């Protein structure tokens, strides 16, 4: 059986091509794959589409890739006031942005992972988010059609993995990571610790191994 454990961060991201679409997990400083982000910056792929809740924080998280001008397009819910590199490039027209309500952002990912092509929800109906989207009424409520959102890669952060790729997370560092894992062609996870197969309680595994393709153990550069 092919080994999912990669020896280095650089090996784990070596084949990401320019122009790839990538999910980046994390929310509020927790659960960001900061080590994979830095490895991707070293690797050099450019013209990326980044799909993430926000767009970097100070010098950390996705700011690393914005600073290096590797991201051409962003799909995000809340770029954030601390996403200074993104904001400068957005103001200069150097990066495109699709704003998506946060719950719809994760639901579109879940749909892609679950074989759902599109779904109707009330979120955003009657707002500028609905522009260009099909509208329909259900039970008297206006609803709009949202499309599944997959990606070429998911870069995620978990707490522990076993060698099969089963994952557990810590507290609110779970956030987008398990959903992104289901919706990418290739899911790459950085973890604090790799444990023996069988060490994780089957009742507690949040991401089953089927969703994980590459595992790399990384010491936590949580915020930079």
């Amino acid at each position, binding site marked *: 059986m092919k080994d999912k454990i990669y020896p280095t961060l650089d090996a784990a991201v070596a084949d990401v091509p320019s122009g790839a679409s990538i999910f980046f997990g994390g929310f509020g400083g927790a659960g960001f794959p900061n080590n994979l982000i830095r490895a991707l910056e070293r690797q050099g792929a450019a013209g990326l589409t980044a799909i993430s*809740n926000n767009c970097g924080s100070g010098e950390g998280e996705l700011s690393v890739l914005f600073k290096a001008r590797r991201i051409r397009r962003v799909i995000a819910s809340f770029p954030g006031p601390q996403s200074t590199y993104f904001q400068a490039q957005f103001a200069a027209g150097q990066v495109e942005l699709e704003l998506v*309500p946060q*719950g719809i952002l994760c639901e579109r990912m879940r749909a892609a992972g679950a074989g759902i092509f599109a779904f109707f929800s009330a979120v*955003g*109906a009657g*707002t500028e988010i609905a522009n260009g989207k099909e509208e329909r009424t259900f039970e008297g409520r206006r609803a709009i059609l949202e499309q599944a959102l997959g990606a070429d890669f998911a870069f995620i952060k978990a707490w522990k993995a076993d060698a099969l790729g089963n994952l557990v997370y810590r507290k609110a560092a779970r*956030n987008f990571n398990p*959903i992104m894992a289901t919706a990418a062609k290739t899911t790459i996870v950085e973890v604090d610790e790799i444990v023996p197969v069988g060490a994780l309680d089957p009742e507690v595994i949040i991401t089953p191994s089927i969703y994980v393709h590459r595992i790399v153990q990384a010491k936590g550069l949580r915020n930079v």
Partner: protein
Amino acid sequence: MSKPTLTREQIAQRAALELPDGAYVNLGWGIPNLVAAYVPKKFTIHFHSENGILGMGPRSKPGEEDYDLVDAMKVPVTALPGASYFHQADAHAMTRGGHLDVAMLGGLQVSEKGDLANWKVPGQKGSGGIGGAMDIASGSRRLIVCMEHATKDGSPKVVRECTYPLTALECVHTIVTDMAVIDVTREGLVLREVAPGITPEEVQAATGATLMVRGRVPEMNLPPIPAEK
């Protein structure tokens, strides 16, 4: 408005009285984020955070922060006994699916039909951002907007029609401001309470839509703010 109106803390204090014991509640950015401190101690309120926490407790004490346990504002928090963690799609299944008893959000404008605008000021610099506000506004069983009654330049924020970009249509149930408590009903806006020392006429004058008054409008019964939380 030269008369003193409520402080942000007092708006939060009044809003806290809207929470029934046992409620599942999400508190948004701004004034709502101050509300948790004013829940009666004998009540059990289950606070939800859209990054995947139910049963969120107060902010961490200095030195006890766990940066894997943060609220939607990136602030380290605690978890109460009986808390649970889940992923963000499950967190928003709760918001969108109608499971939150009450949500409180900040507001830029609320219309007389209960439309909410709270995510973008027209012409503002930068990208703006939506976050979880649209999901929360569209799905909560009861949405309470906590805000100042008027903008800094005196324009009313309770209006006939929102002119700012909308967050969700016909979603607001109650508005708590520094001047009043207003309910959004099928018939229109109903003035339920006024801030101490403020008259219904003064509230109406500061409002961009017609307020209905049903009998005498009582003053808010604000308990004294505790010295220490």
